[in-house]
């Protein structure tokens, strides 16, 4: 270990650590654009200047390795001046696009300008005009004028995705980012370039102009797109979810996530959701009912039936806690071990693209298998097919997938389930099969909550259990699987009303304090967390 001092704080670092690494690891602020912890060092932005004692000139922190006894400082006037003039050069050709730029609010240039800049430009020359709204590929739009040529995106396609689509073309102030002739930025990780772009040069087609970032709140959770279980941050407001970005986790996903995973917010939003419970009303009427009431009714039906007439189909898209409660409800209350695991794409289940994407498109297959093993459930799919065919299994409860689009066999399997006498479909997604059978006197539905709306644990392909926390509520009437299981078992969901003492509320807050809707929106505006 090497001893050094950064901004007056004595630190010990591993040999080979660069100054900027040491600073970011110890929560010291330093201006930088081109350096990214997941990429190689380029040293092109010249913004991470630090003063090293004994060295007459300021040095860049990203490419200077710490040596024994180094005394480093980036708060002196000399450093601030260097950063300020560095920033001036970055801003020479940068257009005044902030009002139309999607990055505004989380932009590196805005941040550094507010911290170090705040001056009028001293350039007498006109700004260099470059291409605007360049279609780089199916996911990304480029604005060359806004680009500061930090080369993060180029290094990303070289080093991480290894697809080498991007490059810097031309020289001097004509230099701009672009794709090589005839190529498109079209890989499964392309949207990471948008994340790492410190300015608004690369923007995501999906998120473009949907929301200003300061209207969005963020919260960390785990992606449920595949069994990798990348740690992600979801951005949402009261209208729903708008985008997903990766969060650093060295053991699981590093700094990145795939483009498919970024689409997982779409099935959470209300347009794609099953919002109401329905039951068949006897005379083939389709009656809307409350999800909890429906679950209780299903519980009564199942209790009245013999154990071997009841079956449960589970998918790998729910949390361990939910599996635990529904499996134990079926075993203990309904006295059946007819619990079946619906595997969506058997052929490509073990596929892996070498970076993050896995063929198993369920976040919690491992967790489901663990719970089934623990309860000694060994029913196979063949048994289900046989049981339904021979009319032995009459009541089938299907806990369907949240992300219906990753189930290519969804329709075929659903049609197969419909051959049973009474089918209860518990699903978060709107399913076409429900529309088809809605008057047929054999199907009832219970809306479920998605991974955004509940607490729980996902076990990823490594066997790593990752906790997720509730982020927001989209469909308030929907139940989690464990709530549904509790209600089916005939118990009630207790609503515990916390007293003010429990909430650690100050005693002088009136009990009838009004919480205005507008105040809540203001929270979105002002308390949306760190960028």
């Amino acid at each position, binding site marked *: 270990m090497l001893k050094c001092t950064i901004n007056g704080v004595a630190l010990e670092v591993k040999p080979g650590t660069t100054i900027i690494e040491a600073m970011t690891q110890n929560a010291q602020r330093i201006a930088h654009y081109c350096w990214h912890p997941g990429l190689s060092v380029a040293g092109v932005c010249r913004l991470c200047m630090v003063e090293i004692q004994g060295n007459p000139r300021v040095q860049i922190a990203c490419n200077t390795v710490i040596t024994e006894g180094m005394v480093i400082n980036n708060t002196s006037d000399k450093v601030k001046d260097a950063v300020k003039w560095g920033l001036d050069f970055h801003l020479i050709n940068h257009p005044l*696009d*902030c009002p139309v730029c999607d990055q505004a609010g989380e932009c590196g240039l805005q941040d550094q300008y507010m911290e170090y800049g705040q001056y009028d430009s001293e350039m007498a020359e006109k700004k260099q005009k470059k291409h*605007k709204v360049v279609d780089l590929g199916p996911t990304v739009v480029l604005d060359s004028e806004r680009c500061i040529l930090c080369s993060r995106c180029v290094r990303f396609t070289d080093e991480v995705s290894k697809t080498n689509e991007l490059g810097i073309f031309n020289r001097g102030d004509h230099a701009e980012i672009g794709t090589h002739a005839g190529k498109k930025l079209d890989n499964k990780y392309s949207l990471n370039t948008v994340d790492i772009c410190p300015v608004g040069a690369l923007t995501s087609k999906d998120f*473009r102009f949907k929301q200003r970032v300061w209207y969005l709140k963020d919260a960390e959770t785990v992606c449920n797109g595949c069994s990798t279980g990348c740690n992600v941050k979801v951005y949402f407001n009261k209208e729903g979810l708008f985008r997903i970005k990766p969060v650093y986790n060295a053991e699981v996903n590093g700094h990145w996530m795939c483009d498919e995973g970024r689409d997982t917010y779409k099935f959470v939003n209300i347009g794609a959701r099953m919002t109401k419970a329905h039951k068949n009303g006897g005379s083939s009427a389709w009656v809307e009912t409350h999800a909890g009431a429906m679950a209780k009714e299903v519980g009564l039906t199942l209790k009245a039936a013999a154990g071997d007439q009841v079956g449960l189909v589970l998918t790998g898209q729910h949390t361990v806690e939910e599996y635990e409660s529904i499996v134990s409800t079926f075993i203990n209350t309904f006295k059946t071990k007819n619990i079946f695991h619906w595997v969506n794409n058997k052929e490509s289940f073990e596929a892996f693209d070498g970076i993050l994407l896995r063929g198993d498109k369920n976040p919690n297959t491992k967790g489901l298998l663990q719970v089934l093993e623990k309860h000694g459930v060994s029913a196979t799919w063949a048994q289900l097919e046989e049981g339904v065919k021979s009319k032995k299994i009459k009541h089938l409860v299907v806990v369907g997938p949240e992300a219906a689009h990753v189930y290519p066999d969804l329709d075929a399997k659903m049609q197969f389930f419909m051959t049973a006498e009474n089918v209860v479909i518990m699903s978060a997604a709107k399913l076409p099969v429900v529309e088809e059978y809605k008057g047929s006197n054999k199907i009832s539905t219970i809306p479920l909550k998605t991974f955004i709306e509940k607490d729980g644990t996902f076990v990823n392909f490594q066997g790593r259990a990752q906790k997720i926390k509730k982020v927001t509520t989209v469909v308030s009437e929907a139940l989690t699987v464990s709530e549904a299981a509790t209600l089916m078992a005939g118990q009630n969901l207790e609503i515990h009303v916390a007293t003010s003492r429990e909430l650690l509320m100050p005693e002088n807050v009136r009990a009838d304090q009004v919480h205005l809707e*507008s105040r809540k929106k203001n929270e979105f*505006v002002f308390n949306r967390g760190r960028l």
Partner: protein
Amino acid sequence: MSVVKQKDEKKEWYLLGIVTGLGITMKHLLVNLFNKKKMITLNYPEEKYEYSPRFKGNHVLTVKKDGSIRCTACMLCATNCPAECITIKASEHPDAQVEKYPISYEIDILRCVFCGFCEEACPVDAVRLGPEWQTPGLNGSNFTYDINHLAYRPALKGGVHSVVDDQDRHKAGI
């Protein structure tokens, strides 16, 4: 609320006060009757008061020289609005130089408090508070003004031109 009543000899003589008050009323009545020019009230529907040019009345969305809407849908007015009465939906403009424009810009005028913060926040002089203030409507009429009303209502005679012009800016090299 507790009021402390003070005993005062003078207050016992209230009749004097009433007579003085009636006297003042009579004075104004007579002045108004015989000297109408000095009357400080207006015969409202026929006579109207001229407000100063800085008066903050109903909103106007300005237009560019070609008549298209100036707003870039940056949402700063909606962010700044204390009454939260502005709703904007942004979209991609076919012209790459314009890039972003509002496909819907709505002001809920009944929620608006006419503070003028939207005008102040606007970076491109796209929204202004105009001189109009008589905008009654029948019960149930639409008080959510859309782009069509805000920018192209007949009273504006084809639209108010914005002072910030992109072409000029580009020529100046900004």
